[in-house]
């Protein structure tokens, strides 16, 4: 069983695509995509266990810190770049977005939605930094230094004049249940965006 956001991404990625998976973890997504859809490409990761797991699966993985950008990848050389649950841990998420859309025309990004109602309850009513399944760390040891909301990200995309081709939110506990209609900023725990450069 794949993580819910990975399952949706799996559906979205076209047959035979050449992709990059930033913060690819143990390579689950790339392995499934290679097997089911003939997708090729590389995963980038810094976690040693994740890297070893990738290698064991036969997933091509490069040990690389995303904060250093994607300088070793040339412009427009991939069909798509995926980044799941890492945007919020980057030093400059906005610059990474530029980098992703430099090497590919399209990218898929997932991140925890800080405006999810449970998070709001934590902060707005109880007065504590939210701790949840999607944000499991305490405030002092969290790698998540740039938390944002569904609305925030949409705003950034508008500012950068990017095209949002698809977006959805999901709840951790309800795997496979994705919606984009009803108050996503309030009821979505995980946000997922599919964006591309504006073609002129």
């Amino acid at each position, binding site marked *: 069983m794949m993580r819910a956001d990975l399952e949706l991404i799996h559906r979205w990625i076209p047959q035979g695509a050449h992709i990059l998976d930033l913060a690819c973890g143990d390579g689950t997504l790339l392995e499934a995509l290679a097997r089911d859809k003939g997708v090729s490409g590389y995963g980038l990761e810094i976690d040693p266990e994740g890297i070893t797991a990738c290698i064991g699966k036969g997933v*091509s993985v*490069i040990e690389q810190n995303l904060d250093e950008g994607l300088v070793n990848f*040339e412009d427009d050389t991939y069909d798509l770049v995926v980044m799941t649950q890492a945007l919020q841990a980057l030093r400059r998420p906005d610059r990474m977005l530029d980098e992703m859309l430099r090497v590919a025309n399209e990218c898929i990004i997932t991140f925890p939605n800080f405006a999810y109602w449970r998070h709001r309850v934590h902060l707005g009513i109880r007065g504590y930094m939210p701790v949840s399944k999607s944000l499991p760390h305490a405030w002092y040891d969290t790698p998540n230094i740039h938390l944002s909301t569904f609305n925030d990200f949409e705003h950034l995309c508008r500012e950068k004049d990017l095209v949002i081709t698809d977006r959805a939110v999901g709840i951790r506990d309800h795997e496979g249940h994705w919606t984009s209609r009803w108050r996503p900023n309030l009821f979505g725990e995980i946000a997922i965006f599919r964006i591309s450069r504006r073609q002129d």
Partner: protein
Amino acid sequence: MPEFPCDSVGLVAPQTAHFDDPLALACGKTLPAYDLVYETYGTLNAEGTNAVLICHALSGHHHAAGYHAADEHKPGWWDAHIGPGKSIDTNRFFVVSLNNLGGCHGSTGPVSENPDTGRQWGPDFPMVTVGDWVHSQARLADRLGIERFAAVIGGSLGGMQALQWALTYPERIANAVVIAATPKLSAQNIAFNEVARQAIRSDPDFHNGWYDEHGTVPRRGLKLARMVGHITYLSEDAMGSKFGRDLRSEDLNFGYDVEFQVESYLRHQGDTFSSSFDANTYLLMTKALDYFDPAAVHGGVLARAVAPAECPFLVVSFTSDWRFPPSRSRELANALIRAGKSVSYVNIDSPHGHDAFLLPEPRYQSVFGAFMSRAARELGLEEHA
């Protein structure tokens, strides 16, 4: 029965393969006939699909694992990674490890007899390149009934051979493991090699390479060459933590005898080496390093040079290696990425400098083991104890 560790290949013995078909070398000369000394560990399966080739580094040889005698205490140079249950699991793989041409451990080299003259080859032994070695290794594979290696593996200069294999014989290599290597030497790397060569060549006992006929050994030159080389194999931190400024005796003696422990260590390393290694071989090996540059004939574009490769690569570097630092391995990995090849790159945290590739380290072993297990799985190799 001798008692060896249970994860050791145990007692091993070298073999010699003689070749009568002349080998044309990159330098333009031809070796009319030659011997290659090698060892094997594990069992070649009936299909001949489980063979792994180990390529050695500058001062290496064929004795990579196990013991030559029951009372031997020191196993082969890569015993940490070759054996039952180790990264290169001899329950699965049939391991071939040879001494390269030009070597001084039994394969044809400067200490062998030149058939044209009846005397030692000495300095007349032709320059050999990484490419020449790979051709000679392919002939050894033919001899052993190995059509395609499950993996070709090497560290440092050995890693360059693994890379060259993937480019020269893409159909004969299923996986390449390139550890602590570089796609070409830097000016600084060549400079260090040149200091080593000059140390040897300027030794009065060198006699332009004809020391054997003069009944001498350029021991001082070799010792110096090894001392300077050894500095580049260790990291500053490793040297610092091993020796610091520790003195051999309590007081300074205001002389040039050994005072600091690091001096004692280097002298010891140099002495041991100079009594066991051939000076002409050392010169040849350093030149093979200097000449290696597969991108040169492709306008310096490495991504173009690696185009023929078909196999998955594992590229490994070590954080404290300043001889072939992580940036050089990344250069190779990036060229492979650019060429769209299957490659994984790992940078292992280690304080041991370049020498880290020889040592056991948990993360290094798990990455290496994972790559080899996946290779075995894909090739459908069974475990046989």
